């Protein structure tokens, strides 16, 4: 079981390194650095900070945002990231998943899917970091889940948009439906507000990890407490 922490706006590196250290001390199992502004502005993350993180952090971490081609992915992996996550660029060019998986192996390639219900089915959304440019894709979420796996995705992060930031719990129905179709590790994202929400998503949806940002950053949930809570609920967690 892996608990992730999502970072946004890592402009102040000192803070980010400190925060990353703190989460590592608190036994977070993995960190995700997410540059929410990268895709909409058509730019890539800069890589200097990746090597600074890699030098101090000894748990796995993933970098998401603005990875548009093999060379930008390679720069980030060479800087020391364990995984790269692609979202909008995969929708614009699905062949990128194949290329990345072929070049670096599926284990490095995470596909992020932003999804919410629309007209009775779940649909994928692109450019979700920018309300002006956000758009619904014609592809249904479950179909996209099949396709990204066939193309070589090694992990799927499903961000349930209608639950994101609401803190009312993960979207169990959608995550369950995706789990049925998903043979690679599935990470739940969007909606964590209480410790019980983590227990619910692990038990009900059999996800491999749950990602959260707000509740960890705000201090509403401390990771050590969350882990002992989950242990008491009979869920296996790293001690």
């Amino acid at each position: 079981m892996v608990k992730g922490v999502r970072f946004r706006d890592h402009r102040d590196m000192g803070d980010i390194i400190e925060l990353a250290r703190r989460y590592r001390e608190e036994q977070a199992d993995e960190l995700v650095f997410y540059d929410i502004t990268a895709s909409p502005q058509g730019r890539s993350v800069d890589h200097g900070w990746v090597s600074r993180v890699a030098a101090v952090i000894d748990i796995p971490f993933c970098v998401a945002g603005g990875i548009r081609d093999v060379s930008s992915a390679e720069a980030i992996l060479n800087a020391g990231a364990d995984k790269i996550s692609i979202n909008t660029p995969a929708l614009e060019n699905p062949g990128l998943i194949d290329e990345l998986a072929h070049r670096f192996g599926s284990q490095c390639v995470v596909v992020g899917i932003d999804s919410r219900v629309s007209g009775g089915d779940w649909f994928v959304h692109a450019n979700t970091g920018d309300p002006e440019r956000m758009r619904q894709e014609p592809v249904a979420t479950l179909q996209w889940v099949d396709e990204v796996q066939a193309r070589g995705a090694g992990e799927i992060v499903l961000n349930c948009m209608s639950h994101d930031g609401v803190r009312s719990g993960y979207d169990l129905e959608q995550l369950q439906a995706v789990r049925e179709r998903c043979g690679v590790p599935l990470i739940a994202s969007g909606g964590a507000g209480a410790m019980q929400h983590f227990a619910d998503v692990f038990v009900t949806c059999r996800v491999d990890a749950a990602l959260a940002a707000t509740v960890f950053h705000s201090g509403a949930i401390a990771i050590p407490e969350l882990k002992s809570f989950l242990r008491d609920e009979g869920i296996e967690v790293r001690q």
Partner: protein
Amino acid sequence: MSVVIVDSGGANIGSVRYALARLGVEAPMSRDSAEIRRADLVLLPGVGSATAAMERLRSARLDTVIPTLTQPVLGICLGMQLMFEHSAEGDTPCLGILEGSAQRIPRDIGQPVPHMGWNSVAKNADSRLLDGIGDGIYFYFVHSYAVPVVAATTGLCEYGSPFTAVAEQGNFFATQFHPERSGDNGARLLENFLRLGGGG
């Protein structure tokens, strides 16, 4: 004490270097057989496919050098699998140092493949790498191929079925997991290895 990391290609083997730096050891990456033979300790990491990694070792003639090394050698992840006789990944003949072969983790075990995440390791023999590290401790795994439990296995992990998580035989040591990404226990394991070179 000199430590060398074999440059077996693939991205992100730099994290092994960072992990050693955190322990106060600067280790260059090398494909030079003389430099590798001279080192007190050798690490063989690896990311990517067995076929590509073996091709890269062969092109530097390291496929004949590594099996003849006499100093402690630590294979990590794909580097561990390369130490065995064969990998089902691309039907690739490997270094043949340890008896056994890497097989694809079956898709029908009811668990996601790749096996990616923290999992616990049980000792099944005396282990110098796991010295001072408790039983059932979690390490970070990322792999789609695994070596079944074999003669050299000193630590095993369960994922569908038991597989080799730690292997030790003579001067050859190996972990399927990533000690460089396994927090304090991973650091302790790397320290145990460094101690074999007479330093720390």
